[in-house]
């Protein structure tokens, strides 16, 4: 339990730094990959908190968050593949 309580602030600071890059990313792709890594790390944080709370019923949220973050990536990539021309606006 001591290890978990010590490593919780590292995760919180990392979440805030990922969110800063997600806010001010120059292109949409920067925000997308930053929020994607944020979702995966929140999934790992939920697993660690389920050990801290000692309840294995809390683990299902981690599985769902890892799967739907992948859907977010695919949606943004599909927008650029289908609906813009190749070599177009440079992502803006």
């Amino acid at each position, binding site marked *: 339990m001591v290890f978990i309580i010590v490593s919780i602030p590292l995760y919180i600071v990392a979440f805030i730094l990922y969110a800063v890059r997600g806010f001010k990313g120059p292109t949409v792709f920067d925000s997308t990959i930053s929020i994607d890594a944020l979702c995966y790390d929140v999934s790992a944080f939920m697993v660690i908190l389920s050990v801290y709370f000692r309840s294995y019923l809390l683990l299902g949220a981690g599985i769902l968050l890892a799967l739907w973050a992948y859907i977010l990536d695919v949606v943004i990539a599909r927008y650029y593949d289908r609906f813009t021309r190749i070599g177009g606006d440079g*992502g803006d």
Partner: protein
Amino acid sequence: MGLGGLVLTIIGGAIIFIGGLFDLVAALGVNKFPDFYTRLHAVTIGAIGGAVYPIIGSAILVFGVPGLSLSARLSFALPMLVIASLILITAPTGSHAVARAAYRSGLKPYRRIPGEVKK
């Protein structure tokens, strides 16, 4: 549990702490790198080293926590391995899809001009 439980607790907790350090370093790199293609490198480190390793570490840590039955420990550990393998498959695939979309939409890589002052 005795000595074995103590060893498992220390190994699992150390892996969780190292995963947190990986996560912090990846977040710093995302903020410091100049370009999308170099930020992709740091982000993939954050997804694999910061998410897969702590989940496996907490699956080890569960076997050292006192006061749980064996079926409860297995109910913790098996879904954790499922989540770790899912992230191990989906994180490189999603990063590759976004990188391909960025390259096909004409995003230029960063090129340092000689004599330019570094920001």
